């Protein structure tokens, strides 16, 4: 079974702090994703990565950066946390992007609930 783990289930930080959210997957997947989930807004893609050191912006990249130094690990960084970044953060991975039939399933971690005071 694919396992995606996130470093913390709950996190409390203060405004202005630099915050690191870590995600690790154990299935040698090429692609990794970071989403935030807010009531009424569903899941919104922040960044994704399709290879080590490669990244691409999603819907809402402002205020975030990412790092992928190793294939299994994808980090989300809040450079200076703000209260409007209080949210549930979900990491996901998938095997690879393919052009033919079907799309690879995304496997999600359990989420990190971040509170910024």
């Amino acid at each position, binding site marked *: 079974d694919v396992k*995606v783990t996130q470093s913390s289930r709950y996190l409390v930080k203060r405004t202005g702090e630099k915050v690191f959210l870590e995600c690790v997957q154990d299935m040698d997947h090429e692609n990794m*994703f970071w*989403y935030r989930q807010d009531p*009424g*807004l*569903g*899941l*919104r*893609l922040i960044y*994704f990565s*399709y290879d080590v050191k*490669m990244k*691409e*912006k*999603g*819907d809402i990249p402002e205020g975030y950066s990412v790092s992928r130094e190793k294939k299994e690990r994808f980090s989300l960084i809040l450079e200076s946390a703000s209260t409007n970044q209080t949210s549930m953060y*979900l*990491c*996901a991975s998938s095997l690879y*992007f393919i052009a033919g*039939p*079907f*799309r690879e*399933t*995304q*496997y*999600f*971690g*359990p*989420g990190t609930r971040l509170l910024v005071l």
Partner: protein
Amino acid sequence: LAKTTQPISMDSYEGQEVNITCSHNNIATNDYITWYQQFPSQGPRFIIQGYKTKVTNEVASLFIPADRKSSTLSLPRVSLSDTAVYYCLVGEPFPNTGNQFYFGTGTSLTVIP
């Protein structure tokens, strides 16, 4: 851009068939439609995926009309354990193509005994 629209919530009694519809009027030719299920305090998990017509697996069926502007997730004979949020996803974030990728806002299904 293929934005998606789903009902916010639905209730159903145990044993009934439940149909959840997702509208995606601007779906692109290459877009697939994928549905995910999310239980409280967990990440979403894959249920079913399709491109056109009907797809069935051991968990659900997915109906997609010829114009592909909507899709319907069908859960046969629901039980209390099917209480969850169901998300419709259209498209996929390919590299270097811009973000043509939308999760719906989710439908909260409550199954009543």
